[in-house]
């Protein structure tokens, strides 16, 4: 077995040192009836690398990859080009096979990139401070709601109808079990909801998203002012983080907590995970934050260095009084984010955002020319909602048969709800060529 260095000679010598006859003797505390006598039946035995590659390559070949077709699916995960140097650099064993940086003298590499990551996230979101990452945007949003409730000791939560349904469900599940009163609004595909009227003195926080699930862009400045007047916190969610290269950051609108899905920068689609949750807030709330924080300090010689800090918020110190139970988070995905964003830099990120928007505008213009197709949005970044003259799920299937992955039917998120069947979410990023767009237009003309 190629991963197991002990030889039979080693094992015998080691058993002699220990003073037992067999490995079985080391398992003597296991109840007799629970000790298995041999390998578990019904499972295959060990395989060489070639055999494993064949097996998994066959499974991989059954999937249609995003790069192989005209591809317009978004809905909270986006197909972007990730430079080769991102993956090649994070594959360095010193990053890949290191643990959480508990011994700072021998993990300055991890700690410094976390410090850079935190800074990048704070800059992007326009906030004071960010943590070292959450599992993903959805879990980060639930943690943000719990954090808001810790800050103002209130129990009511208002979720915008523009919030991604998975995020809404994770909040309902995670915060619901804590007995919080969660008021989720109806899907706001027309961008018409007015949340200000719902805020009262009991409201812990209000959760909004821009661009929304339906691609609408919102300025929450007035909402933040109204919420703050009632002591309510505003949590702004961003599922397409590239948009922050172009649009006003939530921090400038007055957000108290910003949660983003960071997948778009540095991370592939990976069928939904692992991704990376970005979590940022104001300085005054830092001690109520969940998750790990990296901080700057000095070493015994006075040289700058980095450590994990404010750990008294965390489970391994505070146990049941911790701000969260999170331990392992998304370290390597955060590194991918940091390397990609460093490659982009100011100029690259801004340009990438403009290219995304330009492609989406071009596609929207082309689609509007198709008979019966309407673009719902006034404004959008790289994703918008299309109203079709037929059921979107059926149109999508027919296009998939033609080798076009056209988007996400809104009914996939809301199968029970009337009036949403003809809505399709369509995203266009820098990876889409004009030929891809024309293929979608032709496909739609054929199936409608």
């Amino acid at each position, binding site marked *: 077995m190629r991963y197991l260095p002990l030889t039979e000679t080693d094992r015998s010598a080691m058993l002699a040192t220990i003073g037992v006859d067999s*490995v079985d003797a080391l398992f003597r505390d296991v109840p007799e009836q629970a000790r298995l006598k041999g390998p578990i039946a019904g499972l295959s035995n060990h395989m060489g690398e070639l055999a494993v590659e064949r097996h*998994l390559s066959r*499974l991989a070949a059954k*999937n249609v990859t995003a790069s192989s077709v005209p591809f317009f699916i978004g809905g909270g995960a986006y197909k972007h080009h990730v430079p080769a140097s991102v993956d090649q*650099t994070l*594959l360095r064993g010193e990053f890949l096979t290191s643990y959480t940086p508990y011994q700072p003298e021998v993990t300055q590499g991890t700690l410094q990139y976390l410090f850079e990551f935190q800074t990048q996230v704070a800059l992007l979101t326009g906030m004071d401070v960010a943590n070292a990452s959450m599992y993903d945007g959805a879990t980060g949003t639930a943690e943000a709601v719990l954090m808001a409730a810790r800050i103002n000791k209130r129990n009511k939560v208002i979720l915008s109808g523009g919030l991604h349904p998975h995020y809404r469900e994770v909040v309902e*599940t995670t915060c619901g079990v804590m007995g919080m009163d969660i008021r989720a609004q109806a899907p706001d595909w027309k961008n018409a909801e007015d949340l200000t009227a719902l805020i009262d003195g009991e409201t812990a926080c209000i959760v909004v998203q821009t661009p929304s699930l339906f691609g609408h862009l919102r300025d929450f400045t007035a909402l933040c002012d109204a919420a703050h007047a009632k002591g309510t916190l505003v949590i702004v969610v961003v599922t397409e983080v590239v948009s922050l290269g172009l649009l006003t950051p939530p921090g400038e609108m007055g957000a108290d907590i910003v949660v983003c899905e960071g997948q778009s920068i540095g991370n592939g689609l990976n069928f939904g995970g692992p991704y990376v949750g970005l979590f940022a807030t104001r300085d005054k709330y830092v001690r109520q934050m969940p998750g790990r924080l990296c*901080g700057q300090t000095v070493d015994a010689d006075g040289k700058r260095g980095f450590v994990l800090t404010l750990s008294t918020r965390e489970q391994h110190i505070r146990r049941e009084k911790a701000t969260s139970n999170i331990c392992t988070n998304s370290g390597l*995905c955060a590194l991918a984010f940091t390397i990609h964003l460093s490659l982009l830099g100011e100029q690259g990120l801004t340009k990438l955002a403009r290219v995304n928007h330009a492609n989406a505008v071009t596609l929207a213009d082309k689609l509007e020319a198709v008979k019966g197709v309407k673009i719902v949005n006034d404004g959008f970044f790289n994703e918008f909602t299309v109203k079709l003259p037929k059921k979107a799920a059926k149109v999508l299937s027919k296009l998939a048969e033609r080798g076009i992955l056209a988007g996400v039917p809104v009914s996939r998120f809301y199968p029970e709800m009337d009036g949403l069947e003809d809505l399709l979410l369509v995203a266009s990023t820098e990876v889409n060529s004009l030929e891809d767009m024309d293929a979608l237009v032709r496909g739609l003309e054929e199936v409608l």
Partner: protein
Amino acid sequence: MAMNNQGRDSTPHAVTVDGEFVTFTGNKALQQEEALIFELDNPGAVGVDLEAPVTTKTRLGGVKTRASVGLPSLAEPDVVRHYTRLSQKNFAIDTTMYPLGSCTMKHNPRLNEKMARLPGFSDIHPLQPVETVQGALELIDQLAHWLKTLTGMPAIAMSPGAGAHGELCGLMSIHAALDARGESHRRRVLVPESAHGTNPATAAFCGFTVDTIPAEENGRVSVEAVKAKLGDDVACIMLTNPNTCGLFEPQIREIADAVHAAGGYFYCDGANYNAIVGRVRPADLGVDAMHINLHKTFSTPHGGGGPGSGPVVLSDALAPYAPLPFVVHGKNGFDLVEQAADAKGAKPFGRLKGFHGQMGMFVRALAYILSHGADGLRQVASDAVLNANYVLASLKDVMSASFDGPCMHEALFDDRFLKGTGVTPLDFAKAMIDEGYHPMTMYFPLVVHGALLIEPTETESKQTLDRFIATMRHLAEKAKAGDLAHFQASPRLTPRKRLDETQAARKPVLRWVKPAVPASAPVGVAQAAE
């Protein structure tokens, strides 16, 4: 004058401070000082070439755009060099033995990485039509089958993002099952004092109260201590097995039976599953729910703190409450149940994560599992336990073992052997760093004083263990010989010496801020935080 072997003067020409060789740059050959990426800003440079936008027309609906972000600009070579240099400041399994107890730092096979990067897995979107991702769903189904069969459990929830998230999944399943039984008054969770911090934190996160069970003298939990805490308000016990002292709980069946008889459930923390995989099935121990850290037992890389993956196996009693989404066998192949209405009789407690779980980790874990097979996984547990016992047997005369052997996959020592030396477990650990080893877990578990928890894993050779043992013996003897100064000044050879954690917490500096005046002093020295 010092001479080299060619008779030339080899006296250092650089300045020395306190006898230490100092270079002009602050670099020490392979050890490079490295500024923050923000301090390397090279305005005008760019690391990614993008084509010009196809149109300048915008459709932003009147919302404002931002003036600037404040990111630095660098070309690709400088970015690659920056992060490569940072990588060289880390210990990792690839470069050294990393015997961090409770963390299972085993070799991470590169085949796993190669497989996870197959475009058929890495370049598919979670919301593609299910007919275009049949291979992905089949892979999830195959991994689920392996994990269920290895543990003997009938059901599994695949979506949790890490171990603590798996604990949350297990406890929420229990919460839902109790509510369904009309026993919502059961809100007390029993947690042994040796438990990982995540256990009580998770219980509190679900709205349960935590009741601590004291450990016995022998490091185990006794059935009597559990029975003394049972009552009709108990929701479950959270028990780690093997426990955090590296010991198998011999009364585990009796504990499970007592908890079940009292109407509670048995949540097993599976962080230490590596000790028993393929040799013991948790189902045979009476477990109702157990998370499996794919980033421990099944070798998906830790990556400096994630991503992990924490699938949870469930008993028949808890299976109906497993969260959305899950994979089922449908009429036309595999299907994905994403809505409670489609769950056919099951009552999912909700959703824990966006999309469908940590697919990238599933691929890696299945590559590892297929490589080992049922026979190899059994050997994994055997060798992990053998290695730990070999370390225990080879060190117990110079270091103080907390409990009599045999242990399972990790060996626990405490600081009695350092008594009177002035050397703390922290000092001891820092001295190990200069010798080229990542320290063991320190000061955990809390049930012994000054814990030193060593988990070698099965992927260390006897040669490596023998060198490690010799080093530990050397350090233990050095401590006993009274060389306190050596330990207190350790580590000396790392890129940074001991860091001031008190200052970091007292005056938190959590991000870089552009200085008012550009710094001109050598990197890393004059820019130290004031």
